[in-house]
């Protein structure tokens, strides 16, 4: 599928081939209406129309980018985004620079936070009701509690059944932490004291490789297994309610987001695309493409909805967050 801009580019290239601008007016007009030129013009119009239709198929439009300024310097390998609905703030985990960046709802850069340069490869974060930040630090393999008022940092190493847990992505809702354990590929549910309450295991079906991302929606867990290209929907009791096979529509699924209509958005890290699926696994549409320009993605790492219904994509390779609205 060509986006409109690409369609126009191709159309321009065709027009350039006709070299109309180099021709005297009369000759050019004759040339335009010659049979071959008419065919070419028809192709141009079809390409534009096709592109417009293709673009119209996705309801998402680029809204803004979360980017830094020259004072704090560019983000380097940002990995995930946390959105605080109460404070109306975006928190970008700037992993490569060992810091957290906060932005207003309008996308204005507010603060750069390093916990006195103590953060070691932060990867994901949440904020609890007590205003503490809980940051997954890959460099320490900890879930680190940061009390910003007292400027106190407490790294927590997590173990389960005698095995070391390797925290990856984290969510927090209703006094529960949900942590993706990279060592097992399972999701652990913990209380506020970091006591493990239960484990949501990645099914050991043929081809399974462990979860790479998950989202908690109304107490249900939606989890993505990259290797088998499957989305699992667990109900509140941890029972599998749905298995959605994505098939070959995606190359390298890395993250997922679920909207209010339970449309599943899959971020493809390698292809730089987002594919939307219904619950039966039917691909509804595919949008975005790989690249560096605005609205293009380069090794993106996370897709999520913000509380205002906008689709946010953390674009690790391009060091920014792209936000799309309907």
């Amino acid at each position, binding site marked *: 599928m060509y986006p409109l801009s690409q369609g126009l580019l191709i159309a321009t290239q065709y027009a350039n081939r006709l070299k109309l601008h180099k021709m005297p007016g009369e000759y050019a007009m004759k040339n335009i209406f010659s049979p071959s030129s008419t065919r070419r013009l028809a192709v141009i119009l079809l390409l534009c129309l096709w592109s417009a239709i293709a673009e119209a198929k996705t309801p998402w439009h680029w809204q803004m980018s979360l980017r830094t300024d020259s004072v704090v310097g560019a983000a380097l390998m940002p990995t995930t985004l946390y959105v605080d609905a109460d404070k109306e703030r975006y928190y970008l985990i700037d992993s490569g620079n060992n810091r957290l960046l906060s932005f207003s709802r309008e996308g204005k850069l507010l603060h750069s936070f390093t916990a006195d340069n103590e953060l070691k490869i932060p990867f994901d974060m949440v904020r609890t009701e007590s205003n503490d930040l809980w940051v997954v630090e890959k460099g320490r*393999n900890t879930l680190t509690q940061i009390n910003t008022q007292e400027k106190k940092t407490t790294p927590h190493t997590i173990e389960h059944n005698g095995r*070391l847990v390797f925290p990856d992505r984290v969510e927090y809702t209703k006094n529960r932490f949900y942590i993706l354990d990279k*060592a097992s590929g399972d999701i652990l549910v913990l209380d506020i004291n970091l006591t493990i309450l239960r484990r949501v295991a990645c099914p050991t079906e043929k081809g399974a490789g462990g979860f790479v991302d998950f989202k908690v929606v109304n107490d249900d867990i939606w989890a993505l297994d990259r290797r088998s290209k499957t989305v699992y929907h667990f109900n509140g009791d941890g029972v599998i309610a749905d298995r959605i096979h994505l098939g070959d529509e995606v190359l390298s699924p890395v993250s997922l987001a679920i909207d209010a209509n339970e449309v599943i958005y899959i971020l493809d890290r390698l292809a730089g695309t987002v594919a939307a699926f219904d619950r039966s696994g039917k691909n509804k549409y595919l949008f975005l493409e790989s690249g560096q320009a605005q609205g293009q993605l380069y090794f993106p790492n996370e897709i999520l909805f913000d509380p205002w219904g906008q689709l946010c994509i953390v674009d690790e390779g391009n060091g920014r967050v792209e936000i799309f609205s309907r």
Partner: protein
Amino acid sequence: MRNLMQLSPLALILLLPLILPSLGYAENVCFKCHKQQLFKNTFTHKPVADDNCGSCHNPHVARYKNLLQQNVAALCFSCHEKAGREFNQGIVHSPVKKGDCTACHAPHASNDRGLLNKRLADSCFSCHTATPKQFEHTHTPYAKGACTACHRPHQADNGYLLIDNTDKLCLTCHQQATLQRGHANFPKQPAQCLSCHNPHGSKRKGLIRNEMHKPFAEGCKGCHGKEQEGAATVCLECHDDVKQQMYTTHSHFTAPGKGNGCLECHSPHAGDTTNLLISEQRILCRKCHEETFHRKESSPYPHPDAATCSNCHDIHGSNNAGMLKGDGNDVCAGCHKDQGQFTHPVGAKIRDPRTDQAVTCVSCHYPMGTEYKYQLKRNGQKELCILCHRAY
């Protein structure tokens, strides 16, 4: 027909050499120049045996080498239709993928069944030069040169073009009861034979692979029976350097099937190399990164020396995108020593106007392969440059 009737007899005589080859009446004419005995052997290709040279060759002029009617693969598959369909499925042997049938087969005649150019094993070893022809202890089918006892020559559903998955394959010759007797202290039914045995040969008895994991050589208790048995952390207790690589932004710390993720790539017991890989790197990486390999193989311009992934990637984990060993400059500069001396400026001080990220080699090149020369992401004449240089 009226036109033909109007042709003079002289014209018909002149046209005869053109008409007859296509009708297949004048094949013996070929052997007036080409020595016929070179085209006959124990096994002769049917069109040759039928003196039907014209089924493959045009006697006058052709677009293809050796006056072939079509390219080699298309020509072969025009008769061997079923093979043509099958050879697209699963894992395909490299010469087959390239349509190079004559790499192994003689098109006219051969001493060997299947019209092979050479004896089967000799044919295989002509490409697989890194594989020793014999070992101190050699597996019997290998010693006999019976490669097809285990491998399919064209395509297969299993890695290494194996006829079946490894355990099933071994059991076609080795009886389960015999195996169990030979593994008396094995805690469960013997399986995953290749975890310890080299199917071709070894310097050790029983075809145990040459390099043994130290705890395995010393017994089983170094790893088995521990509280964390079955978890990768058992391995990381000793391999601290690898553990540090797991404490990175992106790592290969995965655990499919709830087991020990390390065993996805390494044997805990024995291997052919010191890192105890269970297979060659290109096979191992492909298991999960098929799309990357496909891109590399289908791109007209892939990086020429990209066969060994670990040349550029930190296999266990890295703080760089794509698990590279450094940023998009460091890795390339390791081989391209003159990079930066005469080319587009790169480095932390040169920023990409589209993203404000540092310009690196991978800003313009995609080493896994593209449609453009030098693995450029767009046409280097203009399209690529104007992505940043808008006023150009």
